[in-house]
């Protein structure tokens, strides 16, 4: 469903991505990992058409990205940016309604199925209770769920999320990841998530794409991602591995020694 080949992004003499190739089947959950500055965000932005000067090919449904209009693309892919939505001057529900833009023309009226999409998005992300609130009054965790809800209101088969849990406390990290898992498992949405949480990436049912220096260095299933040599090469850091006492999963911890 998604096929990226030879993707290259340069921005003013600076190469952000070199020769990235990977593919992803519909309904899968891909976690993009890698050290800071590896080009993870640039990859998502290139796929969303935010960075529009990219060489190489990005195919959605066997069709090059460039053949889609921005509006068509927004009915196919939604995006949750890295920055939080807490500076946005809108009420939550209004922001979700605005996110239905791609389903409308300049003259079309608000339809019942638009409202339904908004209601579903609020319900699935558990954000209905602050639909009237101004975005500026939300906490970090609430705001992140609203940003996901807004992307969800677009009703796209694919969603790109840029570090959706980076600035959240452990409880809200779990909660946001639970929401994303629900989108993927219950709604069948193809998810590509950029994350620094290697233990979140290294799970059964996830695929992992590791980027370093703008290059794709590894792609494979989550359950074999957590491996000493691989993590060492990726992050220039030693790790120790422990077994989670209840789930039995392998957990990697950065070893400060």
């Amino acid at each position, binding site marked *: 469903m998604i096929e990226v080949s030879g993707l290259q992004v340069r*921005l*003013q003499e600076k190469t952000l991505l070199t020769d990235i190739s990977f593919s992803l089947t519909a309904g899968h959950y891909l976690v993009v990992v890698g050290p800071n500055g590896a080009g993870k965000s640039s990859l998502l*932005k290139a796929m*969303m*058409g*935010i960075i*529009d000067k990219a060489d190489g090919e990005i195919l959605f449904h066997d069709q090059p990205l460039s053949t889609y*209009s*921005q*509006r*068509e*693309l*927004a*009915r196919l*892919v*939604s*995006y949750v*940016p890295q*920055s939080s*939505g807490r500076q*946005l*001057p*809108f009420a939550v529900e*209004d*922001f979700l309604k*605005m*996110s239905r*833009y*791609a389903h*409308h023309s*300049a003259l079309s009226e608000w339809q019942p199925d638009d409202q339904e999409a908004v209601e579903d998005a609020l319900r699935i992300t558990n954000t209905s209770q602050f639909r009237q609130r101004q975005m500026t009054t939300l906490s970090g965790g609430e705001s992140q769920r609203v940003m996901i809800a807004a*992307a969800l209101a*677009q009703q796209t088969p694919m969603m790109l999320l840029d570090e959706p849990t980076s600035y959240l406390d452990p409880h809200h990290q779990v909660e946001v990841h639970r929401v994303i898992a629900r989108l993927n498992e219950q709604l069948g949405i193809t998810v590509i998530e950029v994350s620094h949480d290697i233990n979140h990436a290294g799970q059964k049912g996830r695929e992992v794409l590791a980027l370093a220096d703008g290059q794709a260095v590894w792609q494979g299933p989550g359950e074999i991602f957590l491996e000493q040599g691989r993590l060492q090469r990726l992050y220039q850091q030693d790790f120790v591995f422990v077994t989670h006492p209840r789930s039995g999963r392998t957990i990697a911890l950065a070893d400060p020694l």
Partner: protein
Amino acid sequence: MTASAKLTLLSVLTLAIMLLAPFAGLSDIADAAIREHILYDIRLPRTLFAFVAGAGLALCGMVFQAMFHNPLATPFTLGVASGASFGAALTVFLGLNVSLLGFDATTLGAFIGALVAISFVYGISRLHYSFSIETLLLTGVATSFFFSSLILFTQYLSNINDSFRILRWLMGGLSISGYQSLLQLLPIVAFSAGIMIWLSRELNLLMAGDEIAISRGVAVKRVRYLLFFTTSLCVGAIVALCGPIGFVGMMVPHICRLIIGTDHRWLIPTTLIFGGGFLILCDTLARLVIAPAELPVGIITTLLGGPFFLWLLVRSRRSA
């Protein structure tokens, strides 16, 4: 109060201002025939012209504030009006007398000057991948200075008559307006307002930032170029006819957002009406304050706008 009730109330108030403004200071004139002539041939077109110009200035300011996500970013603070002024001053200096598609040389000069200025400011702001609003505003200040000195240069080279004309016109005033200039300006402002209404959903999303707007399906580049073109045309036409009237585009849309909220489907008609009414009020004040002489209206709006700018600046610093 609902948004439509607020808009209705504002419309009624503005209509009242429009109806009353032409009569202000009229009772001093004894002769009925002269009074009638002043009312119908001078005051009425001037009031209507003030409405159209004020609406246009306020709408252009609103678009810039939305596009750059900051209340301080307007055609005036970003040097676009200075570019337009220079373009217009240059045509006066060169004595150009061409016209294209019904636009006279001064309007065309101002339009081109505005386009050059906005392309320049926007180009600079895009040099770095992520630009700050401070960079943008400072680029605007530098552009203003640059065009102002070019205007001074033009003025210096001009003869005393042209020089005075340029100076007087730079202060911004509506005293020259008659039905002729009203008919010249009305289609341009109506066209611009139409484009903005057509793009109100896009303007809403642009307020959320370019990345979100693009990911929601807005062809941001195309929308931005269209809006640059439209605002340049509108600011250019207004500047050509009545000089750079500052700060209307900053104060009016900001106050309108406080009144009616950020949704452009409501904000555009509110800004249009409030901007028109506001400039009529300022112009009436300018006529009365040292009557029987009158002040250029640009002095009044700038006297109000300067402190307003500082208030916005202090407020945004505090919340940041």
